């Protein structure tokens, strides 16, 4: 009997916590799809409206911001995949002079992340003439220590025999990378890409510092400017704008929930 009570208490607790955790997001949906009269007035039969989305989209170029974010994320990931793959290949399969020190230097970036070096990196971008460009936002993230580390761990687990076999068949070093290492690391690549997408879709501080115009600004920065309290925009419209900003990632997450969750687990354990 006692066991039953604790079991039901546990279920009750898990559900209550789940409801509390979901409330803020559900509430944003409520506010976005109703007129401002119903923002704090809950009525199940309140008429639904898309008006807030129309107003939000007419007051700020959210579709342009979304395009900027997509371009930014694609540029960063392409850069990361190339640079981290080559770096990881070097650390996993080649013995070169100073390798241990070099690897330690790579890992330093896990501590000293680009975000905290905004001042100096901003000056560097000024010197390179890359302020207010999408490439400028993406560049500091391309040599990702996390990516190099993750791929190196994975490459090291691939049996050396496969490498040797390909070599005997006359495969060059780049061909071995392309035909052996990369195909056998697909799950790690998928995991890394999903983690990277969610990081850079949501990144804010550095893009805020670098971007200065509508054609460069990503969604997070656009949303922050739009929703600033002094802009006096109505709550229901801010909710609509917030939902526009998170929609692509949220929808992707809901569809590929399992892959997302597995990816985060996968990248964490190693």
């Amino acid at each position, binding site marked *: 009997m006692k066991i039953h009570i604790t079991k039901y208490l546990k279920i009750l607790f898990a559900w209550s*916590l789940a409801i509390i*955790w979901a409330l803020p997001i559900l509430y944003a949906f409520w506010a976005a799809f109703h007129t401002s009269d119903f923002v704090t007035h809950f009525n199940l039969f309140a008429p639904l409206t898309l008006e807030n989305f129309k107003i939000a989209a007419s007051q700020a170029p959210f579709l342009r911001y979304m395009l900027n974010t997509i371009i930014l994320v694609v540029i960063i990931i392409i850069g990361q995949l190339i640079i981290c793959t080559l770096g990881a290949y070097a650390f996993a399969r*080649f013995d070169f002079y100073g390798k241990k020190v070099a690897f330690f230097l790579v890992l330093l970036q896990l*501590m*000293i992340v680009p975000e905290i070096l905004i001042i100096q990196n901003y000056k560097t971008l000024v010197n390179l003439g890359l302020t207010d460009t999408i490439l400028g936002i993406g560049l500091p993230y391309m*040599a990702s220590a996390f990516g190099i580390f993750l791929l190196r761990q994975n490459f090291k687990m691939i049996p050396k025999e496969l490498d040797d076999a390909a070599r005997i068949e006359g495969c060059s070093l780049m061909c071995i990378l392309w035909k052996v290492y990369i195909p056998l690391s697909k799950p790690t690549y998928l995991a890394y890409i999903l983690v990277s997408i969610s990081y850079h879709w949501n990144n804010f501080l550095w893009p805020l510092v670098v971007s200065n115009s509508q054609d460069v600004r990503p969604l997070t920065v656009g949303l922050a400017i739009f929703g600033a309290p002094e802009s006096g925009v109505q709550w229901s419209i801010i*909710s609509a704008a*917030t939902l526009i900003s998170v929609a692509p990632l949220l929808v992707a997450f809901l569809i590929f929930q399992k892959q997302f969750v597995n990816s985060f687990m996968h990248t964490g354990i190693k």
Partner: protein
Amino acid sequence: MRVYNINNLYGWLLALPAFVLLGVFTYYPTVATFINSLYSNETIIRPKHFVGLDNYRFLINDPIFLTTLKNTAIFAFGTVPISIALSLIMALLVHSKIPARGLVRLSYFTPTILPMVAAANIWLFFYSPQIGLINKVIEYFGFNGINWLGNSHTVLASLMVMTIWKEAGFFMIFYLAALQSLPKELLEAAKIEGATKWQSFWKVTFPLITPTTFFIMINALLNAFKLVDHLFILTKGGPDNASNLLLYYIYEVAFSFFDFAYASTLTVVLISMLVVLSLLYFTIIEKKVHYK
């Protein structure tokens, strides 16, 4: 010997693109930040010149810096343990057999994929004094509402609650992974020996997931020191710097006051904190934690 040389060359060539970018955006700025913290600002009439530790002398007497340092410590050491404890509870709940488990897990995890800016937008409305939901509930029960973000006593705690909501689900994932990979025989053995669920958790499960706890803790702390996105939406560091955090102060000093030398000095403090924390972690990991 020849093979060795070729490996040498290929190794460095392959790693070169990464090191060029790391050099430009990590090593150079780190060194330059240290150097700039020893110089004055460049003005129109005067080029920058060496000032020794003057910026640091200013730093330790700067009340705003001391406030942000204190706030950052409270923010990090407050949110991280609570988030971790909560995430472990979440993981245990979702790991056990409960109805609608998938939905519960989804609910816990969803906040983590939102941008901090979006989460802050949503919570701004909860906290707002007149129309905010929290005050509506409080007033419904006959109490007076509080201006959560406008009061220097409640503002930091309010930000911490939101951060815990946002982060706990993320850490839960790592605990879930750890729980799923626990050797079942050990838990069964504990059961056969007559251990209660409480005992088998503290004696078997908890020690086995200690590496995960350390992994989460260091990541969470490193993250907490640079988590400032929500300040741009919710408080701008106010009222009267009561919610100002170190990285946000760096941003203000650099891009609102254009005092790059002092901002560099502040950055040195932040870098030092992150490095000390990481070194501490690696020493503990090496010595104490049983790693597979």
